[in-house]
């Protein structure tokens, strides 16, 4: 907590676009001012209703400080990520973040089982992002948080928010009730495509209630953490094989905090299986790797650290330099520091600029 904040001068030259920043609610009731009395009463009486067995916690307790950077706790007692001034000083200013993408993970309705409540939460979380974050701090951009299981509301929310430049993408949970390629979610992709907003998928809790691995629940947080990676792979495979990219040829998908070094091996595996099995999926007209290369962006954090950094550079080459975007995950414990993370890798100035900001600027149409 006493780590000195880095001086901003040198770092600002990085001109970073941080594709994963987590804002938090200053108090559990922070969304109340954006909810109707009906839903304030509901929340006060019944609480939110998610699929894990425990209220307000995951059954895999985090390893340190609730999963937060120890130095990210505001002095006023609010949770990490809740204090804009600290976020500005500690992260945006110190690291030269030109634009930061807000990923509002909790209480946006993505995990709520009551679909009407989920709709109210989603609207409230979007208002909250706008008024508490984007308006006071123009460097921050919001994602339209939508409850993927309530597609009707999700589409309405996308329609309502899309004209506001503060909202640059659409956020939903990849841990959905059905794999995200499933047709029940297609109205969301149609709206995303119509409004030219990328769909951002950030690793998340237990939204859909399925066990986190295909062979049941793991024991340790270490395993649950990794399950987000295999899960993200299955999400991408679902989008490809269910034909989402064929149906929505202009759809863009951003996979956040799910890793990227697995993507080449997954694409090769999908290509090989598709070659054998393509009669089963005639709607998948091209090799899966082509859809991945064209439609999917990846964020860097938590970046992999092979003993030989060159190996990660090989992998980046296979993913595609224009498809990887830097992210920190501020204020979470496994935060990646923009001044440190890419320093191990031998990158050209151009590659570094692409990763740190140019790719995100191109994707999101930032000036």
């Amino acid at each position, binding site marked *: 907590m006493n780590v000195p904040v880095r001086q901003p001068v040198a770092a600002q030259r990085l001109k970073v676009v941080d594709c994963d920043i987590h804002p938090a609610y200053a108090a559990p009731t922070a969304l109340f001012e954006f909810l109707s009395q009906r839903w304030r009463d509901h929340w006060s009486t019944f609480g939110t209703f998610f699929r894990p067995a425990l209220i307000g916690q995951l059954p895999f307790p985090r390893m340190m400080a609730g999963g937060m950077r120890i130095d990210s706790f505001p002095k006023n007692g609010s949770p990490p990520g809740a204090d804009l001034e600290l976020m500005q000083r500690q992260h945006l200013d110190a690291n030269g973040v030109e634009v930061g993408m807000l990923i509002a993970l909790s209480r946006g309705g993505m995990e709520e089982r009551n679909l009407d409540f989920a709709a109210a939460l989603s609207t409230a979380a979007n208002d909250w992002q706008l008024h508490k974050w984007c308006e006071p701090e123009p460097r921050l951009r919001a994602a339209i948080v939508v409850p993927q299981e309530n597609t009707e509301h999700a589409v309405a929310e996308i329609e309502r928010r899309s004209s506001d430049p503060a909202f640059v993408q659409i956020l939903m949970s990849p841990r959905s009730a059905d794999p995200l390629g499933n047709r029940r979610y297609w109205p969301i992709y149609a709206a995303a495509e119509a409004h030219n907003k990328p769909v951002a998928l950030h690793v998340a809790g237990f939204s859909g209630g399925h066990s986190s*691995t295909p062979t049941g629940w793991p024991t340790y*947080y270490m395993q649950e953490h990794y399950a987000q990676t295999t899960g993200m792979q299955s999400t991408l*495979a679902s989008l490809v*094989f269910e034909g989402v990219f064929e149906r929505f040829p202009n759809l863009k998908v951003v996979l956040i905090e799910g890793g990227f070094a697995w993507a080449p091996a*997954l694409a090769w595996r999908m290509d090989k299986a598709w070659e054998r099995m393509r009669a089963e*999926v005639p709607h998948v007209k091209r090799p899966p790797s082509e859809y991945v290369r064209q439609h999917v962006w990846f964020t860097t954090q938590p970046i992999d650290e092979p003993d030989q950094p060159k190996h990660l550079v090989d992998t980046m080459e296979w993913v595609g330099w224009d498809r990887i975007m830097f992210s920190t995950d501020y204020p979470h414990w496994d935060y990646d520091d923009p001044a440190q993370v890419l320093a191990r890798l031998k990158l050209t100035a151009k590659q570094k600029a692409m990763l740190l900001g140019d790719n995100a600027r191109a994707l999101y149409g930032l000036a």
Partner: protein
Amino acid sequence: MQVPIAGAIDCDVHPAMPSVTALLPYLSDYWRDQIANRHIDKLPFQLSSYPPSSPLSARPDWKAGQSPGHVETLPPDPIRAHVLDRFELRHAICNTLHGGVALFNNDMAAAICSGVNDWVAKELLDAEPRLRASILVPAHDVELSLREIERVAPDKRFVQVLFLAMGEAPLGRRSNWPLFAACEKHGLAVGIHAGSTYRHAPTYAGWPSYRVEDYVAQAGAFETQLLSLIAEGVFQKFSGLKVVLIESGFTWLPHFLWRTGKTWRGVRSEVPWIDRSPTEIVRDHVRFTLQPVDAPKGEPEVLARVIEHMGSDEFLLFSTDYPHWQFDGEDVVPAGLGRDTIRKMLIDNALDAYPRLHEAPEGGAAQNGSESEEAVS
């Protein structure tokens, strides 16, 4: 390329499955009655993971002789013709993916597994001395699985115990440790093969619509199982244990090692028994069969780099995955592997993973216990 030398060891072939009728001679009176009265002998016991006529399950030119209960040929004949003779192999290890393991009645699953193991010993191993086999166990029941391992283990032609990649719970759980103790004691490898008993959805977001997606998702299940074995400390407890991931693909391994290595450094206080990096653990204990090679076609230099990223040329065990359609013609060894890597893959690595391959038992099962055993436990 073709197999460049004679005497290689094929670590994954799938014999045609015996029909339930073919298993009857190996079952107890109780189960013979049950099977007759309930018409269980009319049931196919095909795993959903491997529909018999799907291209991935059966290469078009290998389909003959692969349907269950096929009587025109003797069980080892197709394997002889397509694999053993064609590639001039020293051994091939038979993995019989029988659907009995997916039953919810563990006693019935155990009876069928015993029947299959005895059928394999008599119809395959006795008939063809180059063949070796895996022990099929009712993996959802530790006690019954342990009993089956102890029953079959004296027959040294069984070289590993077979699990599916997707089961009821991650394999590393402590409740499974008696199985690993038995494997270590008997010099049996733990073989994990692609496939699911569908106790859980194949993805963390539920059920895909297409088979091809299920197949792709198998890789994630292998990653899960490998991390489960590491995180629970199985390799600290059983320092002699060898685990073989079969039909798992292997090009996902570098990312797995990088990511689990980094996470372990961050959260190692949660799993203090892990005394070295996942990379070191995997290098000492885990092997991968060759097929399928999930690498880009026509770019051998990419595969060569992936092998370099894996950090060892001792990981791979040669396999054809017969009759699954993983390669065409005789082009079973992918371009991009160095000569040393190929030589180790064809012979040495398998001998290291399967200590029982060093022993050369003459035919004949050590015992054939199912006839005398009471089936109801």
